């Protein structure tokens, strides 16, 4: 630590250059931070998927409905621990731009199936007691400033109007939070029994089933059994683990995500290349000074370490600063909530970024430092610079 003043003097030698290099690295790592968040947002469903859950949907496509009566038949299959269903309601709140997913579900079974949606007992009880009750995730509740007790109207182009009413209305009885950082808290759930009674189309039909299996290792066999049960019927099914289902969706966004990632990656490395070169150059320019240090008695390895410390200092400060600012901006809000329900900077991006910053510092300083270290003192002093 006694060399800190020396380090600082080295950095202050050309203040402008140090500042600009620092700023380039800062910007590059900010980009890296946003890339990490984007990647997480586009693939969130996959990492949050339950290990012991399967999705059963209509074989042709998710938009086709299945009979509600399938529930009992799926429950009867050995290895199945619990089943519940959901249906795409496609409700619009005021304007299609305000999109959030909304679904009728079986309240008790749903909460048991998805323990990652955390709801306090009072709210749960209220939901079980209120036919028109609905629970909404924290993200959407905050987005529209909803509170418990609010009455929310939704219009549904697919399902038309409910029997005896002008539009669908629900009472918010609870706001759920996510158990983990990446849990989607943008969804809105209401009761299936109210939905079934009030809808005028496709009575007895639901969207898809979620199945909890006792042993995750048996996922493939049980999936095959479920599909076999309904093969050759008017409503054939396709069953797959929740992770695979989410992965399929992530890959549909697919090309765009890969391209975005590749693009940002390319930019990141280009900026780093320029910054690295500048840092290397600044070391080369000070060959004479390094010669002086060696003449004074600093050992070769000591000189090497000093140079590396300097380049690492700029890189780490710039890198961690950029990541920090990115984290602050990301945590302050989600710019596109209807497209990316989950938006945060995961810890492994932060760690990866910091490691990259250190690597940059080492890479930029290593070669010129090593070359300088090996120079004879007299050559170094003669070099000037």
């Amino acid at each position, binding site marked *: 630590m006694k060399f800190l003043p020396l380090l600082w003097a080295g950095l202050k030698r*050309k203040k*402008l*250059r140090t500042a*600009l*290099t620092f*700023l*380039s690295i800062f*910007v*590059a790592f*900010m*980009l890296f931070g*946003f890339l990490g968040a*984007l990647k997480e947002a586009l693939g969130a469903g996959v990492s949050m998927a339950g290990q012991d859950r399967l999705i059963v949907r209509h*074989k*042709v*496509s*998710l*938009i086709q409905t299945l009979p509600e009566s399938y529930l009992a038949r799926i429950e009867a299959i050995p290895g199945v621990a619990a089943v519940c269903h959901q249906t795409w309601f*496609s409700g*619009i709140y005021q304007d*299609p731009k305000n999109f959030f997913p909304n679904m009728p579900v079986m309240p008790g079974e749903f909460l048991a199936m998805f323990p990652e949606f955390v709801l306090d007992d009072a709210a749960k009880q209220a939901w079980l007691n209120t036919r028109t009750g609905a629970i909404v995730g924290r993200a959407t509740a905050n987005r529209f400033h909803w509170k418990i007790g609010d009455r929310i109207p939704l*219009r549904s*182009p*697919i399902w038309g109007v409910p029997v005896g009413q002008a539009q669908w209305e629900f009472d918010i009885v609870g706001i759920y939070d996510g158990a983990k950082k990446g849990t989607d808290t943008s969804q809105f759930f209401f009761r299936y029994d109210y939905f079934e009674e009030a809808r005028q189309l496709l009575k007895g039909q639901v969207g898809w089933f979620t199945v909890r299996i006792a042993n995750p290792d048996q996922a493939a066999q049980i999936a095959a059994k479920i599909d076999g049960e309904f093969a050759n019927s*008017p409503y*054939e099914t*396709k069953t797959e683990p929740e992770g695979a289902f989410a*992965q*399929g*969706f992530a*890959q*549909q*966004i*697919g*090309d*765009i995500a890969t*391209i*975005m990632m590749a*693009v*940002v990656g*390319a*930019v990141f*490395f*280009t*900026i780093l*290349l*320029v*910054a690295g*070169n*500048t840092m290397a*150059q600044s070391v080369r320019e000070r060959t004479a000074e390094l010669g002086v240090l060696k003449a004074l008695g600093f050992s070769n390895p000591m000189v090497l370490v000093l140079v590396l410390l300097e380049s690492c200092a700029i890189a780490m400060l710039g890198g961690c600063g950029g990541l920090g600012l990115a984290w602050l901006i990301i945590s302050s809000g989600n*710019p*596109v909530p*209807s*497209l990316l329900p989950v938006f945060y900077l995961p810890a492994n991006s932060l760690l990866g970024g910091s490691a990259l910053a250190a690597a940059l510092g080492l890479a930029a300083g290593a070669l010129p430092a090593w070359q300088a270290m090996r120079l004879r003192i007299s050559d170094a002093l003669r070099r*000037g*610079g």
Partner: protein
Amino acid sequence: MFSIALFNLRTLPERKAAAFTAVIGIAGVVGVLVGVLAIAEGFRRTMTVSGSPDVAVVLRGGADTEMTSGLERDATRTIGDAPGVARDANGPLASAELFVIINLPKRTTGTDANVPLRGVQQGAFTVRDNIRIVEGRRFATGRNEIIVGAGAARAFAGLEVGKQIHVGQNLWEIVGMFTANGGIAESEIWADTDVLQPAYHRGSTFQAVYVKLTSAAAFQQFKEYLTTNPKLNVKVERQSDFYAEQSTAVTRFITTIGVFIASLMALGALFGALNTMYSAVAARTREIATLRALGFGAGPVVFSVLTESVLLSIAGGLLGGTAAYLLFDGYRASTINWQSFSQVTFAFRVTPHLLGSALGFATLIGLIGGVFPALRAARLPIATGLRED
């Protein structure tokens, strides 16, 4: 003025490494900017080339996409008979259509993706006049035959002419492949509506009616007739407006992210350029001081530094632009359009306008990156400069 600038440029080879780094830096930024904007441009083009101002789309009132719409057969007949609709020997140029989604594996990943399957009537080919059959033939009415769009055939597995695909309980034979001038229809599979309806238990309901108007100006009359009719509850739009609306979500997403990335990139590139130019000026402090001692004014010095900076940036810009054009133009990709919940295939488009903007952007970075170092060079006290090493 120019002699100094030329002198500066002639000494450039001595600063090869620094100059090279600057050029590469700018090239990278420009290349990437062009790539990202090419995505947005390609997607936008696919959506707008599909839309014609003299074609109108009619959905049920309140529906925001075709999938959430529903029209009865009688309603579709009334729509076809409305004033403003062009007619030929066979009757009105209209096509009542059904829009569903099937799952097919993507060629690139093997995972299932949502593919649009559209039931059309024979009128559809005249309503959308850019449909060309490039392989095989049109489907015959009343048969389980389908034709696939060129984009869909490229993106999804198993869509070759002569093959069959199994959808639910039905077997469909692929009898032809069509193009639509790069528009959305190329991402779709088309079948006969009358065969698709029973396959999907839709009875006699359709989802949208596409009509060709006698002229783009006839739209107002057509729309008023239908919206004032008490027996109908419909939403009438020009096809071009409809598609623009359908693409807002994805376009907004790409543009937001694209602009944000571009801004950060520009900042990073700017700092890099500034750094390089400052180094360039610092390396030649003595030379610049000598020139000024000889009597050259500050003006020529500033000009020469700026020239160098701008030329390097332009070089980088051209390099990056060319690389982007070679790598990206025509590159095919597909993504899901959340509003129609199905895949849209499109190609990256690097337009001259885009390249021009990117080059301008590079020049701007060069200018800003050169101005401050140039001013510093000009204001350096001559004696100090001569002493410098």
